[in-house]
């Protein structure tokens, strides 16, 4: 009962209610679903006028891989927070390890990323997650990200 309430709540919340990040460093639009407390799906649309596309690359704009990782990390960060943190606290999940990340296809302006994260292991304040990004049903990036919880008082 509590779990499903938490899941309903999260889908209705804005990203700034779910993440400690603020502009210009928010790389998610919306959480679209949560399965239990171990899987989450979020979205982000790459707009043609997103500022970094001007320089990456002039005449051939594609989403920088590091920002794709950041979108996956923010998705996983929300999942960690929902899974490990108590309601209303201000914990920050620091990205501490990136492994086996592959960029399989370029992501072009106008694309909508479907970002999926799953918790693989938790020990103490450290969480290992599996992440994936899709565009139109095709996996464009995948990997594993590890986070450490930092309690902010």
């Amino acid at each position, binding site marked *: 009962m509590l779990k499903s309430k938490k899941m309903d709540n999260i889908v209705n919340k804005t990203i700034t209610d779910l993440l400690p990040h603020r502009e210009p460093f928010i790389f998610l639009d919306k959480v679209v679903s949560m399965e239990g407390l171990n899987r989450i799906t979020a979205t982000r649309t790459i707009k043609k006028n997103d500022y970094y596309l001007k320089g990456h690359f002039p005449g051939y704009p594609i989403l920088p891989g590091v920002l794709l990782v950041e979108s996956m990390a923010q998705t996983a960060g929300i999942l960690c927070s929902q899974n490990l943190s108590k309601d209303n606290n201000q914990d920050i999940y620091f990205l*501490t390890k990136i492994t086996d990340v592959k960029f399989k296809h370029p992501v072009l302006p106008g694309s909508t990323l479907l970002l999926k994260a799953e918790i693989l292991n938790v020990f103490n304040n*450290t969480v290992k997650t599996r992440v994936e990004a899709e565009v139109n049903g095709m996996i464009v990036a995948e990997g594993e990200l590890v986070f450490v919880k930092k309690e902010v008082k």
Partner: protein
Amino acid sequence: MCLPDDSELYLRVKTMIVNAVKLKKPPQDIGDKETLFGAGLGLDSVDALELVIAIEKEFGLRIPDAAVGAQALASVESIVNYVKEQKNG
């Protein structure tokens, strides 16, 4: 002095550690009593999670919480003792 089967277990644990945290030293160079975290081998909290995963995979044993982990993951010897206790207990 280790029993023959113990020395095999020690080497298995050392090899597991090297692979789990991608240490750049051969397993034989890790001391049995060398501290794994901090001043010893220099592992950190992210490595602790990798060791917990590796122990589960290698020996089928869970480290249930941080308190058990702090004792069990202190050194190669403590991991060997944890494995022996859990397997025999």
